[in-house]
């Protein structure tokens, strides 16, 4: 029995089921008009953990994005030493970035998750980190793990089967972890002699950037007007 689909077409019955489940919840529990819309990173509080290592940004990004599932390496930050000296050997280490950290889903908000995606990894000069897996914790308990190593640096979408799809209810605390792996493919260059001075014409962090973007696919059920107002354009009524 499969646990995911890679084709959106094949997954539509499951996606429809998630949508209908939210719709049924709305009809049975919501006393106010509601909307069901696509899940965005902000709906799970993603967005305040852009650089888990290497830097301490003083401000948070004001716009949430799944791209917060990123990695910025301390050792890469000092690439001039790493590369010029050939010191940054592959570590094969796994790095964890908590992209959603104990986020409490607001009251009267339900979230249905039907898929997971990564849009690959990228970076510069063999410092690309691979996305390995994602873990979802609900209420402090691990409830789902997904392997994302397939396709390497390329993108990947997995749509869940009914058993894997999940509805998150109001007040639930959610944590999402993304795991990255150092691929271990640094290239060494000529090694300067200790005691010399090296002028670096390019900023130290020019090639230190490595990204992997991973996120969840789903729906949000919430009261109308909180994010958007309902608008059914195919009925004869105005906004």
């Amino acid at each position, binding site marked *: 029995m499969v646990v995911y689909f890679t084709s959106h077409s094949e997954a539509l019955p499951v996606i429809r089921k998630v949508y209908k489940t939210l719709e049924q919840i709305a009809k049975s529990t919501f006393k106010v008009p509601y909307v069901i819309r696509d899940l965005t990173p902000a709906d799970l509080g993603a967005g305040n953990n852009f650089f888990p290592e290497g830097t301490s940004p003083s401000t948070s990004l004001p716009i949430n994005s799944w791209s917060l599932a990123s990695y910025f390496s301390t050792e890469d930050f000092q690439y001039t*030493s790493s590369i010029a000296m050939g010191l940054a050997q592959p570590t094969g280490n796994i790095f964890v970035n908590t992209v959603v950290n104990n986020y409490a889903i607001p009251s009267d908000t339900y979230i249905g998750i039907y898929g997971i995606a990564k849009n*690959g990894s990228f970076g510069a000069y063999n410092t690309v980190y691979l996305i390995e897996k994602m873990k979802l914790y609900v209420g402090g308990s691990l409830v789902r793990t997904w392997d994302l190593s397939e396709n390497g640096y390329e993108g990947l979408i997995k749509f869940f089967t009914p058993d894997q799809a999940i509805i998150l209810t109001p007040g639930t605390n959610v944590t999402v972890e993304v795991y990255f792996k150092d691929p271990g493919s640094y290239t060494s260059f000529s090694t300067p002699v200790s005691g010399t001075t090296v002028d670096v014409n390019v900023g130290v962090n020019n090639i230190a950037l490595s990204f992997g973007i991973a996120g969840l696919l789903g729906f949000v059920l919430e009261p109308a007007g909180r994010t958007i107002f309902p608008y059914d354009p195919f009925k004869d009524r105005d906004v």
Partner: protein
Amino acid sequence: MAIDMTYTPEPEFTYFLDYKDAIPEINWMIDRAYQIAKKSMPGKELIIRELIPEDIGMGEWKKNWNTYFNDLSNNPIGYTIPAPPGTSTVINGITYNITYPAQLINVHATVFNVVNNYQVPRDTYILIYGLDIIRYGRTNIIGNIVTNYNLGGNVTMPLYEYADIPYIDVYLNGNRVRRYYPVVIADFKRDSMYFTRKNALLIRPGYTVSIDLAVIYINNQGPAGIDFSFKGVVIEPKGKTLI
């Protein structure tokens, strides 16, 4: 081949990723939009044509956002990781002096208002049923820099930049009625998505339209950018634009 208008099931989801899957739904929406337009313009011969950017107040879909993304002074809410010229660091007895240009990695997040209260002309119905996104600076190596270590040789290094769209908001008559999540960002190979009637928009004559594009972008020396467009049709009287 005749259009199959027997397709009527209500889609309980918000988008298709395959055009082939979406065709019946798009046909349903265009037919429905045509009926609504026809009802409001009885006696007029209507045409259906593909949506182009000026129909919703944009000069071009593929605006050169790169210009914005690369203008670091244009975005006060971004921040930078400091690596200023003149600094140096000593590692294992080797002093690394950071000299010009000492490029920084710049992280920005902002909202671009790409359509601002554009009023749809009379007798014009606009149906938006999909979107298309192309990102620059992610999979493509968009430039090279040459690093001189003063060690007897230059090393050419690729630059990678990145831009992403967390969401796209559409306002009609001042009310935010859609927040599109471009799921297409999740797949390198995909650049289009097609809305179901749950998520599509039919914009009627006289409505005002505003569109906000939320972006996050990261660059150092090269630009990062987004090309963004909507897919749709315009229904209007014959002769108004086309004869």
